[in-house]
């Protein structure tokens, strides 16, 4: 919102530089986003008086003028046809920046220098309206009012002697959406009461009651409607001061009557509307809700479709305005308007907000109504507008105000405990101090008991409803930065919850294992998220198609990350992500949180070479055993042996070589290879290996508390054993047999070689194991170990037809 300093000064006197004022307002909670000193643009341009005009010796169209400034007389060569002796003009002195170059298409500003024009010295320039960037007129020089004082900065006389503040107002402070509102806050800064506008009306003898009627059918949505009628106005442009003022705060002047309603809007923060009285059928106002689907042409020329929730201002026959949002084209003030009906009403904020959202139409009026205006100033503002219309457009203000206000709003009375103020804020304020702080912003209060103060809240502060609201006022007026900064130690570990511990440990572990952490956004495109066969949750109002659904798995967003890295030539990737995935569990429960399932997952993805490309490392590409190894190592670290793999060796959705992971005998996730067709579809040539696990499952299997096991007292014996088996036999089967037959001395079985070769026979392979044997109570002898080995060989032969490799 734009606020003019000159305008503010109508209500409150202050001498604060813009920088200081901004800072002080900020500290009260009104954020000044920027300010602009309009006069800066006119530095070096002063009021001059033309005292002499002579013909230019070398040019017919030019004159040589003498222009007096405060302390000297300047010679100026001038080309304007309208220059005359005695005129007050805008004289730019050398060094001034001329706001617009009227001889240049772009109109760029330029710096004026002393010059010789056709052989005659010129020490300045008399500016046109266009050159001052005030309008389009470039024909002649701008002639100022004869009262302008010679030597003064010209900004003063062209409506540019002002500072404009851009203030951002939080949604709770509707009262600050006006010059009076901001002035009240400044009053608190400079410790002065503000001066409200003096309203003097000359009413005619004719009573308004004879000319218009107002009927409010929906008093819930429109608790108050005030109106006045002004007859025989003369519609025309507003005077310059009003036009300048409106322009300076970014509002386009239209005509005197409309400009007055806008002026009052920006003065009080209360929106008004002016109707062409003669176009109001039956000279009647009826306030009621619209019919479903009804069409209405608003004064911006757009056809609007209404619903039955929208509150309308109607005449005896038709709707004439969307209440609190925008008037209709049918009763708009036009050049021919003679009689005006002025509306000043209060509409319920939720109603206006719904309408504005529904129509997608936010206006200065709706913005204020939906934040809450002051219900008790409808009459004051309609009077203020009537007064100004009378001053600017003439006319006769009919006697009296029509005021439909069935349920008068009582001022809120709020009880405040001094002890509570100090308990919340951490101060030691006295009753007296609190009363005097509140007085600064026109909140009258009086002590009623030792600890209590009663505050009668004026109707413009509709945000103050209860004690805590007053406490906030006290705190901000006292000054947040004066409140002591302290802490009192109160160490309490009775509920030392760390929801993120496992995540943190997983991250540490994975970083140590050479994985780079990625973070991808859960909102993804529907097409790729559907590849896993899931039905991803769609958002109602997507930011974009690229971000329209919630991902059901971390795999595809990770593949997209791989793809963009490959595109940048990064081919060897080890990535992980910890993030949420989302499913709709039950279509019936779409409107309840119970219908949704949100799970934190861990994803690993491998691509390219297993180890960095460097001397001494093998250039081996990753394969399924690499991802399996990573998963095994991770789960062994966190869950010891609380996990197992289930080998289906089959396809699932977009995966092949899929292995299911169970932790504590429950499904925990999987790992596998992305099928070639999917990779190809995504333009990825490298094979991709992924793993996705539920964090919650790892949490459940997490063997966080460890118990010490006594270290072995006796040494182990290591033996290698190579057995020849059928080529299709899974090694795990043989490993199990070794464990089984090796009991209880066998402590560790490690496969170290798989070999096929002619000597073994066509369909045979050799599996070589390193086996560790140990007894708990003595040192094993070779004979003992030989015996176990024999047993293993025999057992393996019996069970799996295995033979010792010779």
């Amino acid at each position, binding site marked *: 919102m734009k606020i003019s300093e000159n305008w503010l000064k109508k209500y409150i006197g202050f001498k604060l530089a813009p920088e200081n004022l901004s800072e002080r307002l900020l500290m009260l909670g009104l954020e000044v986003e920027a300010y602009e000193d309009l006069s800066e643009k006119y530095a070096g341009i002063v009021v001059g008086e033309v005292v002499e005009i002579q013909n230019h010796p070398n040019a017919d169209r030019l004159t040589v003028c003498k222009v007096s400034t405060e302390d000297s007389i300047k010679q100026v060569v001038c080309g304007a046809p309208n220059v005359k002796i005695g005129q007050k003009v805008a004289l730019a002195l050398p060094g001034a920046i001329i706001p617009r170059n009227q001889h240049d298409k772009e109109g760029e500003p330029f710096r004026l220098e002393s010059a010789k024009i056709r052989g005659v010295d010129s020490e300045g320039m008399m500016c046109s309206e266009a050159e001052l960037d005030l309008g389009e007129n470039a024909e002649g020089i701008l002639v100022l009012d004869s009262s302008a004082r010679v030597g003064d900065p010209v900004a003063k006389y062209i409506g540019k002697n002002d500072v404009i503040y851009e203030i951002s107002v939080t949604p709770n402070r509707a009262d600050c959406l006006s010059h009076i509102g901001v002035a009240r806050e400044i009053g608190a800064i400079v410790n002065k009461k503000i001066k409200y506008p003096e309203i003097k009306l000359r009413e005619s003898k004719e009573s308004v009651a004879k000319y218009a009627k107002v009927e409010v059918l929906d008093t819930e949505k429109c608790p108050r409607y005030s109106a006045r009628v002004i007859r025989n106005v003369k519609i025309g442009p507003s005077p310059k001061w009003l036009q300048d003022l409106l322009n300076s705060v970014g509002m386009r002047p239209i005509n005197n009557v409309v400009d007055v309603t806008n002026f009052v809007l920006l003065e009080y923060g209360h929106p008004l509307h002016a109707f062409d009285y003669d176009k109001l059928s039956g000279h009647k106002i009826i306030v009621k809700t619209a019919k479903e689907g009804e069409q209405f042409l608003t004064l911006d020329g757009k056809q609007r479709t209404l619903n039955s929730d929208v509150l309308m201002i109607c005449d005896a026959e038709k709707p004439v305005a969307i209440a609190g949002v925008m008037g209709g084209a049918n009763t708009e003030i036009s050049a021919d308007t003679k009689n005006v009906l002025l509306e000043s009403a209060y509409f319920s904020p939720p109603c206006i907000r719904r309408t504005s959202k529904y129509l997608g139409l936010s206006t200065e009026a709706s913005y204020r109504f939906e934040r809450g205006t002051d219900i008790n100033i409808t009459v004051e503002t309609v009077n203020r507008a009537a007064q100004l219309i009378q001053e600017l457009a003439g006319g006769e203000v009919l006697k009296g105000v029509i005021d439909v206000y069935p349920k008068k709003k009582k001022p809120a009375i709020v009880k405040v405990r001094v002890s509570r103020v100090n308990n919340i804020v951490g101060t030691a304020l006295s009753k007296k101090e609190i009363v005097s702080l509140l007085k600064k912003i026109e909140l009258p209060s009086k002590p009623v008991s030792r600890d209590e103060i009663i505050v009668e809240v004026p109707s413009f502060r509709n945000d103050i409803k209860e004690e805590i609201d007053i406490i906030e006022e006290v705190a901000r007026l006292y000054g947040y930065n004066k409140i002591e900064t302290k802490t009192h130690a109160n160490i309490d570990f009775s509920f030392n919850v760390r929801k993120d511990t496992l995540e943190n440990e997983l991250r540490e572990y994975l970083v140590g294992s050479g994985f780079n952490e990625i973070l991808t956004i859960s909102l993804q495109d529907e097409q790729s998220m559907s590849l896993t066969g899931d039905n991803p949750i769609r958002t109602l109002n997507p930011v974009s198609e690229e971000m329209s659904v919630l991902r059901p798995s971390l795999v595809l967003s990770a593949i997209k990350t791989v793809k963009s890295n490959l595109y*940048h030539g990064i081919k060897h990737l080890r990535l992980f992500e910890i993030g949420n995935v989302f499913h709709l569990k039950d279509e019936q429960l779409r409107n309840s949180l119970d219908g949704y399932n949100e799970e934190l997952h861990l994803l690993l993805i491998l691509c390219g070479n297993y180890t960095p490309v460097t001397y001494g490392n093998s250039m081996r590409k990753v394969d399924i055993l690499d991802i399996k190894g990573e998963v095994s190592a991770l789960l062994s670290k966190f869950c010891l042996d609380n996990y197992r793999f289930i080998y289906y060796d089959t396809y699932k959705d977009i995966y092949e070589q899929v292995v299911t992971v169970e932790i504590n005998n429950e499904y925990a996730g999987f790992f596998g290879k992305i099928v070639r067709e999917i990779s190809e579809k995504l333009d990825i040539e490298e094979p991709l290996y992924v793993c996705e696990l539920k964090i919650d499952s790892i949490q459940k299997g997490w063997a966080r508390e460890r118990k010490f096991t006594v270290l072995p007292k006796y040494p182990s014996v290591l033996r290698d054993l190579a057995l020849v088996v059928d080529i299709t036999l899974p090694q795990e089967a043989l490993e199990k047999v070794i464990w089984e037959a090796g009991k209880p001395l066998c402590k560790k079985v490690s496969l170290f070689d798989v070999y096929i070769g002619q000597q073994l026979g066509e369909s045979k392979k050799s599996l070589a194991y390193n086996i560790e044997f140990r007894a708990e109570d003595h040192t094993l002898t070779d004979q003992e170990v030989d015996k176990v080995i024999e047993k293993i060989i025999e057992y393996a032969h019996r069970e799996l037809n295995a033979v010792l490799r010779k």
Partner: protein
Amino acid sequence: MLDIIEKTREEFLNEVQQADTLQKLEQVRIKYLARNGIIASLFDKIKTIDVAERPSVGKVLNELRQSALKVYEERKSQIEKAAKPRELPFDITLPGRYKPIGTKHPITQVMEEIKDIFISMGFSVETGPEIESDYYNFEALNFPAEHPARDMQDTIFITDKILLRTHTSPVQIRVMEKRKPPVRAIMPGWVYRNEAVSARSLAAFHQIEGLYVDKGVTFSELKGTLVAFARQFYGSSIKYRFRPSFFPFTEPSAEMDISCYLCSGKGCRVCKFSGWLEILGAGMVHPNVFKAVGYDYEKYTGYAFGMGIERTALLRYGIDDIRILYENDVRFLKQF
């Protein structure tokens, strides 16, 4: 016999010289020196000659065997030496072998640093869902329906009632529903806003929420805690200020600014020439929030605060486009 021996010697020497691979040499060895090789058969023949000659012939034969063995060994090592590849001279400038080390995402790193500071002050870490109901995200936090305060946060909806949380504040409600005071917790996580993606904003980003409820918690305490945090995180020399603001779920509400640490408060592009950087929003928990979770708001008071993580990370690392954070380019990730 001696002639035969000498002939054998000649032939042997000849063949040894001709053998140029270990394999060929081995064949020569087998031919002459094996258990049933030529030399061995000569020994056998000794039995057939005159007894008187036997010792001298035996001596010559022994000499032959020994010298043949010697020649053979010499030739063997000769061939081996020739066959062996040349050894590289030791070069310490060859790259060392290593296993790769990964990196944590910069957002994770900033988040962890912030969490660690609050954890050291006795805060727990709590989490909550990203899919939320209108109740937790707005209503319980004192955002009435149809209130313009809801416009402060553009919401992404799943249905009319179900949405993606716009801030981490709903976790406050969930934690208070679960626990009795005192409660002191931080709540990190993803949040979502319906905002166009640009260099400055993303539709999804991280926040961390803080909450402390107990007897006797004051605004003064809020300031104390947050100043302690800011000094630890941004440096002990920063200046700070608190200014009034508005959040429906806190009152009094405040925003905290610190002196811009890029320009030391002199004014620069990052702080928009104000010398100040806004780092967080905070305030005293609104009584209506306590009512929603069934806390006695006369007995307990509390403060809450929230801050965005991405902006902090951008400032810390000097990143000027927020989007690069979630492109996950490994060249980017490896910088942290």
